[in-house]
């Protein structure tokens, strides 16, 4: 009885956060003299208005889910993997590198694509591993290490696009020379939407869910995250587990970056990570680190992203407004969790 009572209250607080976030954005819209109802319906229409838009939502959903899955693992181990953006970028760089390597060799494109995706995952894992090593053996907080590695990854990416891998004749912000069509991940009809990406993402989701819910490894990670000293005393190799959590997260981030290259842009572009890593951190916090909620909430965020594109076109508003909505959602829901704890007491 008391339990259900508490759970009901808890949902009320979540809803309260949701309402506050929408209220906050409405206020901003009113301040800039825009009609909130029009704006929200535009976002809605923009996300599900036609099949192209729906397919675009799923294009965004893929990296969001993968990034969120990745950071769930590091969060479970009690780590803030801010460096996920750089890990996505490195995934993209490794993938591009492998495809460029094999372009002129007589290897079937399907195998090259598979290899390049694998390389991308390894690239992400290497970058994440660096953050992990810095944290565990160098005493560098993973937030600072990750931030630094993000900058290096961006610089490396831009350096390649404008340097070694620049387009013949002219280097440009639009990225490297697109790959021949054989080296694209097959897409559904003429959309940018690829069943392969979706398939890999769903596999990723299942893997993370099982890993965190049902495996000894997942439970040990949880123990490390909840109480490192106690976990060590109970016989868990805490350092090794922290490092492994970084590596697993890096694999997922690398996969996200890799798919951006082979399925979406078909080349390396400067903003290849598109902030999906940070958004993954937000989603993970929003869903209170419950793997079961990753797919729907990531879908919601992806829909906001795509729907937001309509705002500048129709209403001359900046599309970053959806970013405000996403950010305030996270803030208000976290805030309400804090309020709930104050009201109900801990636990």
């Amino acid at each position: 009885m008391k339990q259900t009572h508490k759970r009901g209250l808890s949902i009320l607080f979540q809803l309260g956060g949701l309402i506050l976030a929408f209220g906050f954005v409405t206020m901003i819209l009113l301040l800039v003299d825009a009609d909130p109802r029009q704006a929200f319906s535009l976002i809605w229409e923009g996300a599900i208005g036609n099949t192209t838009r729906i397919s675009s939502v799923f294009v965004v959903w893929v990296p969001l889910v993968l990034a969120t899955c990745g950071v769930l693992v590091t969060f479970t181990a009690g780590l803030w993997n801010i460096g996920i953006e750089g890990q996505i970028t490195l995934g993209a760089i490794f993938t591009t590198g492998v495809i460029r390597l094999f372009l002129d060799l007589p290897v079937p494109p399907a195998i090259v694509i598979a290899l390049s995706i694998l390389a991308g995952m390894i690239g992400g894992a290497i970058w994440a591993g660096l953050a992990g090593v810095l944290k565990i053996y160098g005493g560098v907080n993973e937030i600072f290490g990750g931030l630094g590695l993000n900058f290096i990854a961006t610089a490396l990416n831009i350096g390649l696009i404008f340097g070694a891998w620049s387009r013949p004749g002219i280097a440009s912000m639009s990225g490297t020379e697109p790959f021949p069509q054989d080296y694209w991940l097959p897409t559904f009809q003429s959309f940018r939407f690829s069943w392969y990406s979706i398939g890999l993402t769903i596999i990723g989701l299942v893997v993370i869910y099982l890993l965190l819910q049902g495996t000894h490894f997942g439970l040990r990670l949880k123990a490390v995250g909840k109480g490192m000293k106690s976990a060590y005393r109970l016989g868990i190799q805490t350092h090794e587990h922290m490092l492994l959590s970084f590596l697993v997260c890096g694999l997922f981030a690398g996969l996200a970056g890799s798919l951006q290259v082979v399925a979406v842009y078909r080349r390396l572009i400067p903003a290849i990570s598109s902030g999906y890593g940070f958004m993954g951190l937000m989603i993970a916090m929003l869903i209170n680190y419950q793997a079961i909620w990753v797919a729907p909430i990531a879908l919601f965020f992806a829909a906001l992203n795509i729907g937001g594109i309509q705002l500048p076109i129709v209403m001359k508003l900046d599309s970053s407004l959806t970013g405000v909505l996403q950010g305030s959602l996270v803030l208000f829901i976290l805030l309400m969790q804090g309020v709930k704890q104050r009201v109900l007491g801990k636990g």
Partner: protein
Amino acid sequence: MKIGFNQINKHFGDVHANADITLEIQGGMIYGILGENGAGKSTLMKVLSGFIKPDSGEIFLDGEGVAIETPADAIKFGIGMLHQDPLDFPPMRNIDNFVVGQGRGFLLSYKEVIKEFQALQRQFGFTLDPDAYVDTLTVGERQQLEILRLLWLGARVLILDEPTTGISIQQKEKLFTALEVLAEQGKTIIFVSHKLEDVEALCDKVAILRRGHLVGEVESPYDTDQLVEMMFGKQISITEPTSIAQEKVVFQLQELYVEHYPLTIENVNFRLHAGEVIGLAGMEGSGQDVLLRACAGLLRPVSGRVIVNGKDLTGKRYLEFMKNGVAFLPASRLEEGLVPGLTLAEHFTVVTDRQKQLFIDKAYFRTITQEMIDDYHIIGRPSTPVESLSGGNQQRAALSLLKDSLSVILLEHPTRGLDIESAIYMWDKLKERCKRGTSIFFISADLDEVLRYSDRILVFFSGRVSKPLDSGSTSLEQLGQLIGGKGWDEEIVNEEFYEADT
């Protein structure tokens, strides 16, 4: 300044740290507060200096009731406290530390301040360099700096919490001289300590606290036996310890040298027999926790050797010790013992050896956990998060998580915070393990417990370790005196040497 406490009460959870304490301290004297660890000394002093708000009770300064809400308030009333661990700013210069708490003015005139600083320290014969950095000072010098700072801020009452821990004999003499000078100037000095020797040498009058209660006040000159009895309580009959120790040596320390700021433990030699129980007695922070952690591989010794079952594990990490049958149960159960947020069943899953499969067999571990819950009388279910268990049940859970085939269990305060029944149960379970050949090292602040359950006792005082005392022929008084730093003559010092038998 005359200080009056009227019926001060303070609870921390279930612990009644200060129970109805009513006490009056006259000005211009050195007043001692004596008691074993956890007696409530620091709590009472923190109430006076505004760090802790009492649950109830009043404080009077020169007969007037005052409300001291914060340390800044206390300083305004002229009360300054010198904490056990110096609360200063190591990366700053002495002179910066000196001025940091002052409220007057906005711009600093260093020239003026340095002049005042020098004049002040000359009174006490201190020789601190105002431009030196605090992190280059010794503990004793940091104390001197803190005393000067508090005096400069206008303290008329100086509280010193265990000031003689970790400082050299020369510094102690300097400190005592300074305190005597201050008392002569009319300042009130409150000297909090568990060291009988210091209190006897310095204090004009002393109040003794035990388990949160004021036992009484005694004036100098003192009778040591009386002080010991007041501190530790009347000796109750002690059941003869039933030893089940065997001949086999399972654990050895050879010339162990461990450093852990501010203590140094030197040249400890010890042999632990199978099934033997060793009590480590001493005031908290006298080095017993340092030694215990060194025995578990949680602290790396500077030199010497730790040998487990004939295998040299010196410098290896704790996980290696665990593999060789050594387990450590810390006092802070939810920080180092159990993982808050994980259920009992999850704990048993984590510690299991059955981790060959990838996935967790949840039904299996629920059953195992239920068996342990029944076996160890834990009030809780497999799905109960450990943080919602009571302290006693947490302790039973922690014990039940230990593997069966251990050679050595190292325990910190195994029964602290437990009621008598739980404590007895805990020891029954431990003794059961001893019968199967497990040896035990345990730290306890409860001398009765040490005497009752140990086969042999090691006494600690400021990092010094006694030779193993046979618990059968040691009295509570003798133990109390040793803990308070008395009677440390040649024959008590640990200097046995064993041939290595690897």
